[in-house]
């Protein structure tokens, strides 16, 4: 074996190429967030790098629609049957605003406040849903935004200690 010349494994080569070909990370972008034009749906404050209104980042419908879209099919504890949710990943949203923190405090229209560890968004594809079964979530229902966990894909998420993190009528996030 010793007389063989050392060879770079193919997989290592592939990783090297991927690193060079991959787009630069979002937080490296110096572009500040555009100002919202329509009604403000979501406000993010706290330890974030990107802001567009005072010390916070605010989003209208169009800005949220620009985020990479994601789809999730899952059951929930407050509805019957399998539901399809459309929206974007919480992870992508936090990357976009350059969030640096351990915890995200989510606030709902009815002043429901819950702390969620940022780790959740790294471990699971947690969705911020705008649509359920193709219908836009409305403020008079579970809208405008609903935090949805991939409950059916991970047994550990089928637990009341995760159920309370499914914040609906989400309007505000504070990163700490």
């Amino acid at each position, binding site marked *: 074996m010793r007389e063989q010349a050392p060879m770079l494994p193919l997989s290592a080569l592939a990783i090297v190429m991927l690193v060079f070909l991959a787009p630069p990370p979002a937080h490296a972008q110096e572009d500040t967030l555009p100002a919202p034009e329509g009604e403000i749906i979501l406000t993010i404050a706290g330890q974030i790098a990107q802001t567009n209104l005072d010390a916070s980042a605010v989003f209208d419908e169009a800005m949220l629609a620009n985020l990479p879209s994601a789809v999730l099919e899952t059951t929930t504890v407050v509805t019957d049957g399998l539901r399809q949710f459309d929206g974007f990943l919480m992870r992508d949203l936090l990357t976009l605003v350059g969030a640096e923190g351990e915890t995200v405090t989510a606030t709902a229209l*009815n002043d429901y406040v819950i702390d969620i560890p940022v780790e959740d968004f790294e471990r699971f594809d947690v969705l911020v849903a705008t649509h359920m079964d193709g219908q836009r979530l409305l403020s008079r229902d579970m809208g405008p935004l609903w935090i949805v966990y991939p409950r059916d894909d991970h047994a550990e998420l089928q637990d009341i200690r995760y159920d309370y993190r499914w914040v609906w009528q989400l309007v505000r996030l504070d990163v700490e």
Partner: protein
Amino acid sequence: MIRRNEALAYAIAGIAIFAFAVLLVFALFRLAGTEAEMRENERDNMLWALSQAHAAVLLLDAEIARQAGIPQSMADVERRYNVVLSRLALLNRGPQARYMGDLGLSDNLAAADRAIRSMEDDILGLSHGDVETAAAVHDVLEPLIGDLGLAGNRSMVRQWDATGARLDRQRESIVQVIVSIVAIIILGTVLSVIVLRTMAQRQRLMRSFVREQEIAEAYRNFVALASHQFRTPLAVIDSSMQRLLRSGRGMKPEEIEERARHVRGEVRGLNELIGATLDVVKLDAGQVSADPARCDIVMLVDRVRARQLEATPGRTITVRLGREVPPAIETDPLLAEQVLGNLVSNAVKYSPPTEPVFIRVTAENRQICFAVEDRGVGIPQDEQEKLFGRFFRASTAQDVPGTGVGLSIASQLARLLGGEMEFASRAGIGSTFTLRLPHEWAAIRPEQSIERLPA
């Protein structure tokens, strides 16, 4: 009887194993049930959903009243209105709707939802000072507030009842599992004891079986050996007599005398053989007992030497008596003579005719040691531990006639006399057998008297 006991043991073991399995399965089943029940969240969020709806309706009611009195932005009213609709939508959907149905509130909630939505324009367009509209909205919200309060009440009672019942079930399951485990432990112990006892019994049976086989083998060897030992002298006697008959008067008196002496020697050998065989039987039957008396050591050794020289006149037997040796000891003189005679006769038998045999008598530790030394064939190292066993014959002794009982009898007799037998031997060089006898008879404990057939 044994067969019945065995069947009973098998039955008990079978029942124990069956009960063991049943209890294990039962405990497993109860544990799995409890685990599944614990995973069920019981829709614990119903009470929370109701209280949230209750608060949302109260807040809307308050906001409308304030809007009628104090001019301010409509955004708050709209937010409160949306939250109320959202809560009602939640309660009228999926698992929540079924739960409200159980509480008997579905119709009221649906009606309240319709009534509130029908007043949407009035609520969202409420202007400052419009007390009448505010009162109308209040009339719609008030029964809903009452219903939600009542629902929270009933829900709490239901949940606490359910929780209590669930805890009872789980406690019961846990107690059953604990009892099962205790029973399993007891059964396990019983089974282990049964298994261990069976194994021990089998081991014992195996051992006694092996021993019986060994004894049977030894007896077979003895019979073969003895018949050979009996036949050889008989053949010699027979041939001598034939010769005598055939020669008739022609035989010289010296030759007749020579033949008669030869025949007598063979007869004596046969006698000894029969005597030894009888000794074995007597020792086995416990019929030999020692009869202590004063025994003169010099006389004892001389008698043994003289008797051996009578049988084998050409041999040299040298006696060396230690100066410390007392003139006499207290023992059974006849048995002591038999043991010593056996040792000397062996020494003569198993060494070349030209080699001398020594008898050394010494005294040490209140014991007299009679050491009989030869320069004979010796006993191989790996056979030495069987030496005093019944019917044992060393591989180096194959050419010499013998039955293999002599040393066995001698060592048994030595113990009967309260003494012991020792030996040191090297194949091809020679052997020394030592008989140790106590000075005084009183030192002998009764249980040392006689033993049955050694294992």
